[in-house]
């Protein structure tokens, strides 16, 4: 049970920083609360008494969304559901709607925020590999000023980030990848409400004929302490002709990705299958020429 004496909902960044200053050492920041409330239960943190909770979801800057040609800026309090509701956002971040549909369930993703997912820094978080594939920059601010850093530097380990005590994550700046086809592969014990055993974000851009891979982005999570971008595979694929052999070749690159403590062999099999399946799906959504990939390949990895 999460017990507090006061629940504050600041309406601006200044108000939030003032509250953080006033209650220094006695507060906790919350957004959607979907990680915080289950954490404060028996078997995890148990009953937790925190004098002040500061809810950042009503701060306008944290709800912004700007889509430019090159970059997308998203406020930290962006609910995951927005990636399903906002078509323009889905175009600029084409793996994100696929990720969102796998994220918790239809209800929790209306509350769960992007910022919460990143700060919680679970190795199995689903949104972080997508952000990583977009070369996301984390924007941080405190009463003293603001700074930013790449997501891959921000998350330092399971549950660990570079967030300073008096700081908030205000938002994320990501590559706009309109024109890419996106896919998100995830497996857990069931389909909804499930922690990823493996999850993979894939985006593919093809040439006009849908035959050559112009660019691609891949990032994986659930199998190591922090999400990992798969640049080796991206480099291998870029500029090559789209064929089943190429995709299988990429999936067979000896990268030794799985660092989990459990079910390693299973995860290795899944990773290989996901790489091929994710690339096929993303390529198709990117407008792959109908004869580029064979039916057999699709059936084998469907």
């Amino acid at each position, binding site marked *: *049970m*999460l*017990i*507090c*004496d*006061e*629940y504050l*909902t600041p309406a601006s960044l200044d108000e939030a920083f003032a509250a953080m200053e006033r209650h220094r050492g006695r507060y906790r920041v*919350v957004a*959607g*609360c*979907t990680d915080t*409330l*289950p954490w404060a*239960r*028996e*078997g995890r943190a148990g*009953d937790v008494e925190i004098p002040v*909770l500061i*809810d950042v*979801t009503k701060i306008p800057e944290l709800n912004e969304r700007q889509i430019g040609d090159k970059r997308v800026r998203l406020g930290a309090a962006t609910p995951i*559901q927005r990636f*399903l509701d906002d*078509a323009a956002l*889905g*175009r600029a971040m*084409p793996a994100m*709607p*696929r990720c969102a*549909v*796998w994220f*918790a*369930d*239809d*209800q*929790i993703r*209306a*509350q769960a925020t992007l910022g919460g997912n990143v700060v919680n820094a679970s190795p199995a978080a689903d949104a972080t590999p997508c952000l990583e594939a977009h070369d996301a920059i984390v924007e941080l601010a405190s009463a003293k000023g603001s700074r930013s850093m790449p997501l891959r530097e921000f998350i330092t380990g399971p549950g660990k980030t570079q967030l300073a005590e008096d700081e908030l994550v205000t938002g994320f700046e990501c590559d706009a990848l309109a024109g890419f*086809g*996106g896919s998100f592969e*995830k*497996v857990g014990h069931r*389909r*909804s*409400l499930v922690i990823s055993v493996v999850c993979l974000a894939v985006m593919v851009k093809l040439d006009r004929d849908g035959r050559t891979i112009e660019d691609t982005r891949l990032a994986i999570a659930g199998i190591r302490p922090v999400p990992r971008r798969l640049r080796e595979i991206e480099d291998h694929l870029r500029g090559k002709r789209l064929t089943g052999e190429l995709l299988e070749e990429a999936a067979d690159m000896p990268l030794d990705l799985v660092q989990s403590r459990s079910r390693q062999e299973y995860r290795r099999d899944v990773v290989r299958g996901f790489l091929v399946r994710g690339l096929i799906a993303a390529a198709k*959504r*990117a*407008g792959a020429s109908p004869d580029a990939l064979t039916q057999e390949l699709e059936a084998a990895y*469907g």
Partner: protein
Amino acid sequence: MVDVRLNATINGRKVSRDAKPHLRLLDFLRDDLNLTGNKEGCGAGECGTCSVFVDGVLMKSCLMPVAKAQGAQIDTIESLAKSGELSVLQKAFHKAGASQCGYCIPGMVMAATAALRANPFADREEIKERLGGNICRCTGYQKIFDAVELARDVQNGRVPATALLETDTADGEVIGKNVRRIDAPSKVSGRLKYAGDMTMPGMLHVQVLRSPHAHARIVSIDTSAALAIAGVESVITSADVPGKDGFGVFVHDQPIMARGKVRYVGEAIAAVAAEDALTAKRAVAAIKVVYEQLAPVFDPDEAMLQGAPVVHDYAPDNITKHIPIRVGDVEAGFAESDLVIEESYSTQAIEHAYLEPEAGLAYVDHDDVVTVVSPSQNITHHRHMLARIIDKPISKVRFIMSPVGGGFGGKEDMIYQGMLALLAMKAMRPVRLVYTREESIISTAKRHPSRTTLRMGVMRDGRIKALAMRMVCDGGAYGLSTEGVMRKAAILAAGPYNIPNVRIDTYGIYTNNTPSGAFRSFGALQTQFATESQLDIIAERLGLDPFEIRRINAMRDGATTHTKQTLGSVSLMRALDAAEQASGWEAGAPTVRGGTRGDLGHDDVRPSVTLGTRFAATGTQEAAE
């Protein structure tokens, strides 16, 4: 504490009230506004019994601090049938038989409402996906999906509204007909009160102190600091039991609260009744217990060894129950068999996970009748046991069975009703205890974990000649239903097959694990898992179709079971035929299948790991790309 002044519109009415800042929206709705239609099944966002609309968007109210509802429009299950007339979806749930225990149903109806609002033409796959955040343990979901499809079609005018009515029954004729359940309207509307939904004037809230140790002697319990807290009314321990302490379905080996020693992690040691749950929690934290650790035993096979720690003094060998069955001469049966196969099997503990965590309310009425209201699956037995425990004549003890929000055997044991009775007697006020999901999992019975060795002898033509089975079950710290489970496990171990020579031994063993108890099938699962698996293995070795080997050995009408019961009619052959047909079975020995199996990959077999039908349905994302 700084209260939140909440201004919101709830079910169409303006509400302006102070709420404690730590409340979740669910607490505020249920406790402060008495809107108990939506439930708390897990408190962690996993089950969906608490789903409500917030500004038209369905959310899990157990994950939402009440302050987030500031200015919002909240609609609970009570809003759907406000005028008394059920919504189309609620009627469809009624018609389709979608509600069983009913505990998930308010949330499920809300999720279905949200799904059809999002896509009025959603197909079954999309409905499944959109209901993914809501769990049901009774129906297997099919009737729920049927209901949503029926409501969709009525709403879209594809089928007439009369399809929601009872169509099949002539006057008074119900047997063999498709009738609507009479309790369904109360469930689909959220009006049915489960124990945790009930309140009484002056009611106190109960919290329980539980053991952190698996096996320890209780040196002392000091409740003085707890009693000193303002708002705490009573604290009880085993010292407050006036009569002969001890309950259980077969042996009365379990005290209301730990007496002298604790035998498993999560065992109740003391209970507090206070003005509110938070005060009771703080009081529980203030109780001081001094333990002296004892060597624990966690493995039933180890518990059977000489010199193992003894869990109960009355059973120095730690055997709760041994059930032997002997038919014919198994050794001779093995000797004449063409093939003898021995394998080992194990099954794990399983939690029932009914959607309704245990809850109960107790009071002493004006005639001094100690009354306990709870979703007990066995009230008459509980009543007799409690009378002895609290030393009252049976006429002064009353059990009222509240609606059971799923039991599956898990609510047969009198785990908490005794504490409620004692607190009601001590405080002379009504008391209510509502378990958290975690408490339910840690302290209540599980399915018996088992280890089985099974030896079977068969002839080349598939006839079984002999079966020898030894199963050791972990019964955990207390007896509960173990004896009955071992008996049923043994009786059904050899399956519905004619086997001339049988030797079966089932053992229920005390350990310091969570007690095992009743669970659907009551022991049959564990032994039959072994027997049926072994038949598949043998079929493979003999090159027989798995259905065939079962038909060869099947008991027919008039057969005598291994425990000498004559069976008038046996439906096994029909059941096998039906299963073979329905599964699209590809005939032949298991060895004939491989990469080329013919019974997979059909249109009605869904791919294993997919989500996202909504993209195909709406086309928006695809079109965007």
